[in-house]
């Protein structure tokens, strides 16, 4: 094997080992200070279901957490994207702790599950466009 081939093979092996170490079996609770999940379902489990519940039916106490299941407000994919980025009323904003792709993934997941049957999706670029502008620039 040529020297270059050796180097490439070793690099590939190293990447594989590093990858195996880095990808935890479950991305939820896998990092002390970051949401590392990339997949919409995992992100829903990590964040949304705390309030909107595992079945997305919401809950009612002194006030209510709205159901995301069969929710007509999800018609436009931009509406939930704006809310995830900025928060709404008592709901915290997640724009600073999730990147555009994560937000697109979780919005698309919610719109395609829990009795929601929307087939159109939102892209990371579209999520980026709804982020509040800072100093005349799009953030991040």
């Amino acid at each position, binding site marked *: 094997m040529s020297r270059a081939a050796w180097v490439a093979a070793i690099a590939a092996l190293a990447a594989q080992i590093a990858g195996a170490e880095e990808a935890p079996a479950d991305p939820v609770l896998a990092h*002390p200070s970051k949401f590392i999940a990339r997949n919409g379902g995992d992100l829903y489990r990590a*964040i949304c279901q*705390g309030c909107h519940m595992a079945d997305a039916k919401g809950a009612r106490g002194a006030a209510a957490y709205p159901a995301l299941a069969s929710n007509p407000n999800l018609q436009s994919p931009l509406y939930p994207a704006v809310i995830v980025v900025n928060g709404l009323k008592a709901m915290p904003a997640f724009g600073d702790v999730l990147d555009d792709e994560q937000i697109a993934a979780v919005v698309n997941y919610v719109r395609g599950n829990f009795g929601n049957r929307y087939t159109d999706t939102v892209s990371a670029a579209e999520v980026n466009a709804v982020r509040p502008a800072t100093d005349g620039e799009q953030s991040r």
Partner: protein
Amino acid sequence: MTIRRRDLLALAGLLGAGSVLGPTGAVRAGMTTPPYRGPMKLDGAPKKTSVLVLGAGLAGLTAAYELRNAGYQVQLLEYNNRIGGRSWTLRGGDVYTELGGEKQICEFAPGVYMNPGPWRISHTHKAILDYCKRFGVALEPFVQLNYAGYVHSRNVLGGKPQRYAHVAADFQGYLAEMMTAALSKGGLDQPLAPEHLALLKPMLASWGGLDGSGRYVTGASSSRLRGPESISFEDASITYSQLLKFADVLQLGEDAAMWRGANHPGLASFQTTLFQPVGGMDMIPKAFASRLPGVIRTNARVLSMTQDESRVTVTYEDVSRPGSSLQASANWCICTIPLSILGQLELRIGAPMKAAIDAISYSSETKIGLQFRRRFWEEDEGIFGGFSITDLPIRQIFYPSGGLNTPGPGLLYGAVLHRGPPTYEFTGMTPAERVRRAVEYGAQIHPQYHKEFQNGMAVAWHRNPYTMGCNAQWTPDLIRKHHANARAIDGRFVLAGEGVSGHGWQDGAIMSALEVVERLHRRIVAAVR
């Protein structure tokens, strides 16, 4: 020295919500709270003037207590079947049903308790300390910093927990050594007068445990801080302790967030002395409630509020009779219901107050209490109170300050999480799963967990039906835009409590209530004259 507005705003940015001070530490700079001036004395309340107070947390209880003392007719409505709000203690036999319907039955042994919400009171919290003194609520120290606690990272020293005493001493020692070396090379761009340099060098040496030549090395000086490895009486010899490597100290500090968040023991909010009520935080609201006979109606869920020129009328449900609709009415209303909930109630208020209520989000917090057969952290490891900190998703273990050095069973807090991803991730789990995971992670620090664990309770504040979150997230920007509108008396209705207070602690809730009661009283008295 003059302080410019710009400086104040910069400070507000440092101190404000969204900062790293933990759930309650953040002083909401820009919000002005007058200092506590001692027991309230209000004269001249007109006869037959009534005030309706909503919410029986410490703010509502304080308002009701002071208004009644002043001679007003007071009624207090509370949704929960107990008083106290967030000032809450769980004991054996308690039942807690969270949003989503998961029910936890507390199996703690007699004498064992958990404060799922507030657990410490700062020595700077003058109002709450004064009420405790006047009401005879016994306090004891709340241990914040414990040098025997652990600093732990899965990635450092094979994941072996290190004593705080060693990590802190080594951090200090290496820094002092670097400073000393820089000083002798003249490597400081801020020149020091020779007489001050003469003071600094020996100070660094004793602060950092340096030897006679300004080095931080294994020996008598460093062991004065971190303790020796062993002492032999047989041959009268001392084995000095080995230092951690500076690289490991730095990585531990980073991974366990040693100087970040609420872990920094020097933060103004967490400096000694801190207190807790003996036997549980709910001793304080109970002391208020016992002084308010016939005033409080529990199981009363407020749904809406209307008002006109002379009265405020509130519609509420008696939750023991679902679907019922009752009314309460008074001349004035002080509302301490958390903003997280208020935003969804039907209120006849102006747009500015409504906008203020709607602008505030509520943070996430999760606490998990674990009961063990014995206090192994005291018996085996000499940890009496305070914290261990870790990069595991539980982030902190807290050892109770009450019942120190007593036989088991005992309770420690197996996870203490504010903001940050893990609190959300734990919130999404069932309580049983939260407890199971807390035990699994904690056992990596205390292997005794496996043998000694008995039962646990897990409270995730976003699933709390009565607060729906931990506390109000004001930022300097939101304060500028909305705080005055949140505090203004809107017709006959005014907000008080943590949601609008100058800081997020219980003392802030009480101070807010005192300020509102006084302001309302002045308004009422002025109108009569």
